[in-house]
Structure formats: structure tokens, C-alpha cells
């Protein structure tokens, strides 16, 4: 029995001129993850002083040529976010810098190659893209940023204006697709998106064109790092195919969290004896612990962060053994499963099963990173 034939792969939406399944109206149009700055697994809204390379709210990193010049915090300063948003990411200068030629201070996100493979960059069919965001600063003027290739030697500096201090401004920058250079299309660095907070001349170039340089910003852009107490807040970041910005793509919380967990997963204690995983005694002083990950990660994690070793213990029957050191064992780890070796002072039994639990504290945690 025939039910008919569907010839269209495009569905007209109720919004005039917008079709689902076509161009930048498709689902997952936003290639930025956590663009609304909702997920903050590492810091849970706490302020951190950033070093030369620090991940802050999920997927968003800070890179600087000098450490301890900024604090970074979800919802820093507690200003009202732009309409439609509940969170933003804020950076505040705590130690001003007079920029030297080689200095750079940028907020960035590296987009995985798989998520921009359809851009066709590096080919004659490269697609035009548009970045949009809401920005807020105590400074006014022309600000800068860039897109950069996975090989770090091909970039497109851009500018945008913040005309009024301490007021949210929506910005939009359209960028022609890059027809040259090498662009990763698998699980490596696809495109680096930078928002500059102060960049010296070595890493600044003419806005509005691609060039074979490692540019992080546009020449002459405002330097946030040069003013003590200056602020730069951002949210609603979107990178999409097309020559104009469309409405921000909101995602369900669990969906956004899972996207973030491909790059970082944090396990926090709930109750004081939260169970983290299970282990097997290796010898009297070592217990090998294994933990399946919540979502497959981008690659085998290369970082483990944790609370102090003695915030963990092993239980086996009525025996409790407090951990003395933690060691990450990437040799027993892949993108789906983590291996950790924990040492105890003594009392371990080879081959015996143990439960890894929080040692009577609600502040223990384990975090695994596979960031780009």
C-alpha cells in the first residue's frame, strides 16, 4: 500500500523566510558549546585567578602570556544578563599590563573538527560563517578577536564595537570561509575562536581578511588588561553557517552538559560517603580503581584533577583504608573508562574488591579532561 512520496527535505517554519533543514536554520546550528555559559563544572560559579592557561566555565579557556592578571567567574559582578540569558562569563583585570609586542590575553573556545567539518574550509567551497554574542565591558571602543586554524598559522582578525560602558551590546561578525590552510575535521582542533582582552603587535593583524599568520586580535583593539579593574563579560556566543546572525540556539540543560562532558567530566561528592567507583587490590599499598565515564570523551583524558588524596577512602567489608596518594594511570584509560591508582599506607590485599568512596566529606571530587 502506497502512502505517497515526500520529495522535500526542507520544512517551512512559522518564521517567515526560515526553513528547518536548510542552511543556518538547522538544528545544532550553533557550533559553540556552552555559548550561554550555563555549565561550570570546574568552579561552580566561584572566582578563579587565571594562570597562563586556564579552563573556566565549560569549554571556555583563558590564555595569557603572563599569569595572574585576570580573575574569571561565571556571573562575575552579578549584573543582570541580557534578556533571554541567565548566565554570562566575566573576566576582570586584577593586575594591569602595559602590553609588550609579544603579550597576549584572550578568552577562547576551540571547536572540535567534527563540529565544523561541513564548513568546507581549506577548499574552494568554504562556507561563510557568522559569530554573534552579547558583550559588556567597563570600557568602550573597538574590541578585537580572531578565528584561527588548527595549525595556528592562518587566522582572521575581526573587530566589533562596544559603544556604551556597562551595557550589554549584541555583536555580529560575518566571516568569509577560509579557502586555504589546513582545517582539522576529526577530533582535533577545528577552529579556535578568540575574544581578545589585550594583544601585542606580534599577534595582531589587519581586521577583515585571512592571512597566513598567528593573529589573535586586530591591530589597535581595546586592551582590557591594561586597565586595573576593567571588566569584560560575554554570553550568547554563537558560530553558525551563513552571512547573518540568527536567534541564539538554546539547548536543554542535560544536552549542553553532555556536550561539555565530551571534554571535561567532574564528579562531585554528594553525601559524605559518596561512592565514586570500584577497585581491586594490587598489593598492600596500592588499589587500582576503575570508573566508567558518563559520556565518551573526545579522546583519552590527559588530565585528572581531584581533591586531596585523604578525602577518599576504600571500603571492603568493615575495613576502611584512607588514600595517601592519587596517581592517574592513562595506560589503563580510554575515552570511555578511567583507571586511577590510589596508594594507601598499608593493609591492602591483592585481588580483594574495594569501594572507592568519599572519606566523610562532601567536598571530594574527581575531574577528567580531554580538552583541545
Amino acid at each position, binding site marked *: 500500500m502506497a502512502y505517497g512520496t515526500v520529495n522535500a527535505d526542507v520544512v517551512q517554519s512559522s518564521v517567515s523566510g526560515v526553513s528547518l533543514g536548510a542552511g543556518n536554520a538547522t538544528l545544532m546550528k550553533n557550533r559553540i558549546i556552552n555559548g550561554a555559559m550555563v555549565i561550570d563544572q570546574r568552579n561552580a560559579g566561584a572566582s578563579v585567578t587565571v594562570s597562563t592557561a586556564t579552563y573556566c566555565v565549560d569549554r571556555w579557556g583563558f590564555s595569557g602570556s603572563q599569569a595572574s592578571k585576570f580573575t574569571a567567574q561565571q556571573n562575575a559582578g552579578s549584573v543582570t544578563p541580557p534578556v533571554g540569558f541567565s548566565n554570562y562569563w566575566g573576566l576582570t583585570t586584577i593586575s594591569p599590563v602595559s602590553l609588550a609586542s609579544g603579550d597576549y590575553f584572550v578568552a577562547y573556545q576551540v571547536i572540535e573538527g567534527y563540529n565544523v567539518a561541513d564548513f568546507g574550509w581549506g577548499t574552494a567551497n568554504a562556507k561563510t560563517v557568522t559569530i554573534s554574542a552579547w558583550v559588556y565591558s567597563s570600557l568602550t571602543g573597538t574590541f578585537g578577536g580572531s578565528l584561527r586554524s588548527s595549525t595556528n598559522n592562518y587566522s582572521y582578525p575581526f573587530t566589533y564595537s562596544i559603544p556604551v560602558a556597562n551595557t550589554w551590546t549584541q555583536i555580529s561578525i560575518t566571516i568569509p570561509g577560509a579557502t586555504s590552510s589546513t582545517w582539522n575535521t576529526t577530533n582535533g582542533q577545528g577552529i579556535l575562536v578568540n575574544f581578545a582582552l589585550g594583544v601585542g603587535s606580534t599577534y595582531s593583524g589587519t581586521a577583515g581578511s585571512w592571512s597566513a599568520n598567528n593573529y589573535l586580535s586586530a591591530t589597535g583593539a581595546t586592551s582590557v588588561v591594561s586597565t586595573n579593574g576593567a571588566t569584560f563579560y560575554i554570553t550568547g556566543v554563537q558560530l553558525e553557517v551563513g552571512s547573518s546572525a540568527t536567534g541564539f540556539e538554546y539547548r536543554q540543560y542535560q544536552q549542553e552538559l553532555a556536550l561539555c562532558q565530551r571534554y571535561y567530566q567532574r564528579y562531585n561528592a554528594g553525601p559524605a560517603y559518596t561512592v565514586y567507583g570500584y577497585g581491586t587490590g594490587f598489593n598492600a599499598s596500592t588499589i587500582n580503581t576503575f570508573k566508567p565515564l558518563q559520556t565518551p570523551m573526545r579522546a583519552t583524558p590527559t*588530565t585528572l584533577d581531584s*581533591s586531596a588524596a*585523604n578525602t577518599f577512602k576504600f571500603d571492603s567489608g568493615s575495613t576502611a583504608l584512607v588514600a595517601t596518594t592519587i*596517581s*592517574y594511570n*592513562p595506560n589503563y584509560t580510554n575515552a570511555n573508562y578511567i583507571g586511577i591508582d590510589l596508594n594507601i599506607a598499608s593493609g591492602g590485599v591483592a585481588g580483594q574488591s574495594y569501594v572507592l568512596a568519599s572519606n566523610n566529606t562532601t567536598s571530594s571530587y574527581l575531574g577528567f579532561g580531554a580538552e583541545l
Partner: protein
Amino acid sequence: MITYYIPRNSNIVVKKTVFDSGSEQHQVIDKDSTDYQAYLKWLEAGNTPLPADTGA
């Protein structure tokens, strides 16, 4: 405080940072990285990474 160790049954070098709060960060270091150069200097200074056979 920064130390280094080689996980059991591997030739991977892991950088371990213990912060004032007691929290820790363990990072696999790439042999092309500046971290690896720092590791080599750490060895030159007479330090020794934890041996692999301790299970650490």
C-alpha cells in the same frame, strides 16, 4: 608543589601539581611540550620520578 611520576606499566610521564588547598592536578605531558622541558630540568636537578613498579 610539582613532581612527576611514571604510571605503572607505561612510559608516560605525568606532571603532578599539589595546590595549597591540598587539591591535585595530574597532567600527561607531551614530549614536544614546554612541560616536558621542565621535566628534563627537574631530572637534571637530581630528582627522580616515582618508579613504575610501586603501582603509583
